[in-house]
């Protein structure tokens, strides 16, 4: 996400760890098929269809009118001949009233839902797609609607609607519209800024076609889901109002039946039971259907996962052979895998061996999907919960990290092992000032007082080249540039004078001039603190600039390792050779002159 005022970052989206760890997104099966496979959806849809049909078939199912009274049948119990479910306090047939109430409910649902959808969707489309003035205008209109006091309004307007539930539901639909408007408008705003909409414009599509072809598609799912919930809400509100007594006594509805049943609760409890049961079933079905629709349209949502749980390992840790004490980090035969949606696991890192000496800068180079970031995260112990370390060991300063408890790992993180992320902005908490976050990090890994930590952070901010440390300390992340944010993150990382610094593509998201400055800074800090650095990158130029040794990764394994000069001068592995060969020659220039302007068959 680019900040329009930020001159130092540019967006380069390199598909990386997210792509590996994401659960499968919705597959290719069409939505209706997914619904049919969902028992919840099937049951609720069937129930609703049956109920609606019962309502429609009312004339055939009963000969009693909904308000037809029979003074002989007052409070008749269930099973009285001619009164299947008994009769109420006025001698009206409960079964007949129930069936008629279904129709009332259906009409209420249709009115409320369709008005809400029509007004909300149109408002959202218009407000989201067109320019600023239209946007403000629709915002005002819908804010206005939201300021009306909801159900209270429906009660107040009784003299105007004369209690007829139809205009009441129409008004209610308008009151519901802002919720839909907000959803649709946000979706449209999101889509409007997508590049494929720009491309469609450049292809010559008019606004209407773009709305229909590209925008509406994104919107249809949420609308259908909302429809289910809106229907439930409409029926609920109409029943509630009828229960209160808003509305003509002539019109049969669940609310009215429940009200009279409530009054007769001691005399004939079942009078209350039937309408409640039916209302409950309808409402529950609509809610459950809405949930099923949501699952079908939007696919699996990300699941809750416990952070800080140590990643599962299939092998208990323990170094097999003696570890060379000169090595600060020794990774042996590391393998990381993720469970697949189709069952089974897929390895993203396999059999990685890597050594890092004290004070040495090692570059871990590879293209996207090579597993380099995963290796780095494993060393930090911050792999996603789903990750499984299937084998291998990571020994840091004589201590085995694989299988280490989270509490022990925490004592190392931020103290002896530090980390610099790729994208500075998204790695700072937007709600806290920069200084406060850095101080928190410092205090979490040391026993400094607040004042001591603040002094340290300020001096570090100056050390990393920020001109006005106090100002940056007091700023929120969105108020500083990407380059400054990265410097601040570096300051936070080196605060504890760590033995190992893991830098995950620290300059990829930065402008090239800023990149050079950050690399200078890293080189200086590394020399001053005698840190070992694991630099993960895909850029061979960066590697040539700062690294002592290089390891090349492809598809989860290290294919070649050696000193920087060795690898550049005499790459052994064909993949390394291919990579180095793909780097554009510094001297290559277009040799051919532009062809003369050609008319003719190109037009």
């Amino acid at each position, binding site marked *: 996400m680019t900040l329009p005022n930020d001159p130092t970052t540019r967006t380069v989206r390199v598909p990386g760890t997210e792509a590996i760890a994401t659960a499968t997104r919705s597959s290719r099966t069409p939505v209706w098929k997914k619904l049919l496979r969902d028992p919840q959806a099937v049951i609720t849809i069937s129930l609703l269809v049956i109920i609606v049909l019962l309502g429609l078939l009312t004339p055939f199912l009963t000969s009693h009118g909904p308000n037809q009274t029979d003074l002989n049948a007052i409070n008749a119990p269930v099973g009285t001949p001619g009164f299947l479910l008994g009769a109420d306090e006025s001698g009206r047939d409960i079964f007949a009233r129930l069936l008629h109430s279904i129709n009332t409910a259906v009409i209420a649902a249709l009115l409320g839902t369709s008005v809400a959808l029509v007004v909300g969707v149109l408002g959202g489309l218009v407000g989201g797609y067109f320019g600023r003035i239209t946007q403000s205008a629709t915002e005002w209109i819908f804010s206005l609607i939201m300021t009306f006091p909801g159900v209270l309004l429906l009660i107040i307007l009784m003299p105007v609607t004369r209690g007829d539930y139809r205009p009441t539901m129409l008004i209610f639909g308008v009151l519901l519209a802002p919720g839909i408007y907000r959803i649709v408008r946000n979706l449209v705003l999101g889509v409007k800024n997508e590049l494929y909409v720009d491309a469609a414009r450049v292809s010559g599509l008019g606004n209407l076609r773009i709305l229909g072809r590209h925008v509406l598609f994104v919107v249809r799912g949420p609308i259908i889901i909302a429809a289910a919930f809106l229907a439930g809400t409409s029926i609920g509100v109409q029943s509630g109002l009828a229960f209160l007594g808003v509305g003509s006594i002539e019109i049969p509805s669940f609310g009215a039946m429940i009200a009279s049943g409530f009054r007769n609760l001691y005399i004939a409890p079942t009078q209350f039971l039937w309408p409640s049961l039916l209302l409950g079933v309808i409402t529950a079905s609509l809610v459950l259907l809405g949930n099923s629709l949501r699952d079908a349209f939007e696919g699996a949502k990300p699941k809750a996962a416990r952070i800080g749980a140590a990643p599962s390992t299939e092998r208990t840790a323990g170094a097999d052979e003696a570890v060379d004490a000169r090595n600060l980090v020794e990774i042996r035969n590391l393998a990381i895998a993720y469970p697949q949606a189709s069952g089974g696991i897929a390895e993203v890192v396999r059999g990685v061996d890597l050594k890092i000496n004290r004070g040495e800068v090692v570059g871990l180079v590879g293209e996207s999907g090579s597993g380099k970031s995963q290796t780095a995260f494993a060393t930090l112990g911050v792999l996603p919960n789903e990750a499984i370390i299937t084998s291998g060991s990571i020994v840091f300063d004589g201590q085995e990290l694989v299988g280490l408890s989270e509490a022990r790992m925490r004592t190392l993180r931020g103290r002896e092992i530090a980390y610099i992320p790729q994208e500075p902005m998204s790695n700072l908490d937007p709600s806290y000032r920069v200084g406060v976050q850095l101080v928190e990090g410092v205090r979490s890994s040391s026993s400094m007082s607040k004042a001591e930590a603040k002094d340290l952070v300020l001096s570090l901010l100056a050390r990393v080249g920020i001109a006005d440390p106090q100002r940056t300390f007091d700023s929120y992340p969105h108020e500083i540039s990407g380059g400054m944010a990265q410097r601040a993150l570096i300051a936070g990382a080196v605060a504890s004078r760590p033995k190992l610094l893991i830098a995950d593509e620290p300059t990829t998201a930065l402008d090239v001039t800023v990149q050079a400055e950050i690399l200078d800074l890293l080189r200086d800090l590394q020399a001053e603190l005698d840190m070992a650095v694991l630099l993960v990158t895909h850029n061979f130029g960066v590697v040539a600039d700062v690294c002592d040794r290089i390891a090349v990764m492809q598809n989860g394994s290290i294919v070649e390792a050696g000193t920087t000069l060795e690898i550049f001068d005499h790459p052994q592995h064909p993949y390394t050779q291919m990579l180095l060969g793909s780097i554009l020659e510094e001297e290559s220039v277009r040799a051919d002159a*532009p062809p003369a302007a050609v008319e003719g068959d190109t037009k």
Partner: protein
Amino acid sequence: MSLLEVRDLRVAFPARGFRAAPNEVLHGVSLDVAAGETLGLVGESGSGKTTIGRAVLGLVRASGGSIRFDGEDITTVSGAARRKLSKDIQVVFQDPYTSLNPAMTIGDILAEPLIVQGATGRDARAQVRTLLDQVGLPSDAIERLPREFSGGQRQRVAIARALAPRPRLIVCDEPVSALDLSTQARVLDLFVEIQRATGVAYLFVSHDLTVVRHISHRVAVLYRGDMVETGPAAKVTSDPDDPYTRKLLLAAPVADPRRQQERRLARRALMDAERTA
């Protein structure tokens, strides 16, 4: 007469807030692109290089200056007249993951511009095959969705889409920046090959001097909305006159440890000279 003539182009974005002054992103930039030529536009974030491209495409409104295409003034053109230009001016965007509608098949994506230009369904289908061929993709891609392809392949689809109406100018907005190293070279070569075959002109925007050098005949360098240098690619990208261009050149690390060390020293020298100046 150039195919594309931009004179003194200014673009300003309205600022947030009630009476805040608009934020001018381009302060009067001029450039030319001849038919069949590649003009490389280099700059960092905030230079305005992407904005120039978007102004030429009509995605952003110019607040001053003029843009002429093939002699005609297209600066303020909009609506139906702008849509007519889609025959001549096309685009390839940076992000292969969001420049293709994830819900449409490749065949539909490529047929869309053709149908807008008036081709029948059958014509479009035949042309789609040719296009896929041109960019080196198999014809079974027609029924598949973008998510089934890699970044490099998707970018090829984006190129094919740009070629569909047989344009005379394609604005390329950092088209290889989001691709892997090995794919970058291949896609760049594809661009060159297409230019040789069809004579299309490119306005090639990038932040990477090396990339720009590889594909451009001429190069223009932008810094914070101003053009600081223009000239033949060889000159501007290896021995530039302007100090900013020089800084840019020296800041990009070269993939060779020894030469990089030389470059680093040269950069340090430049920075020291700047400081004492």
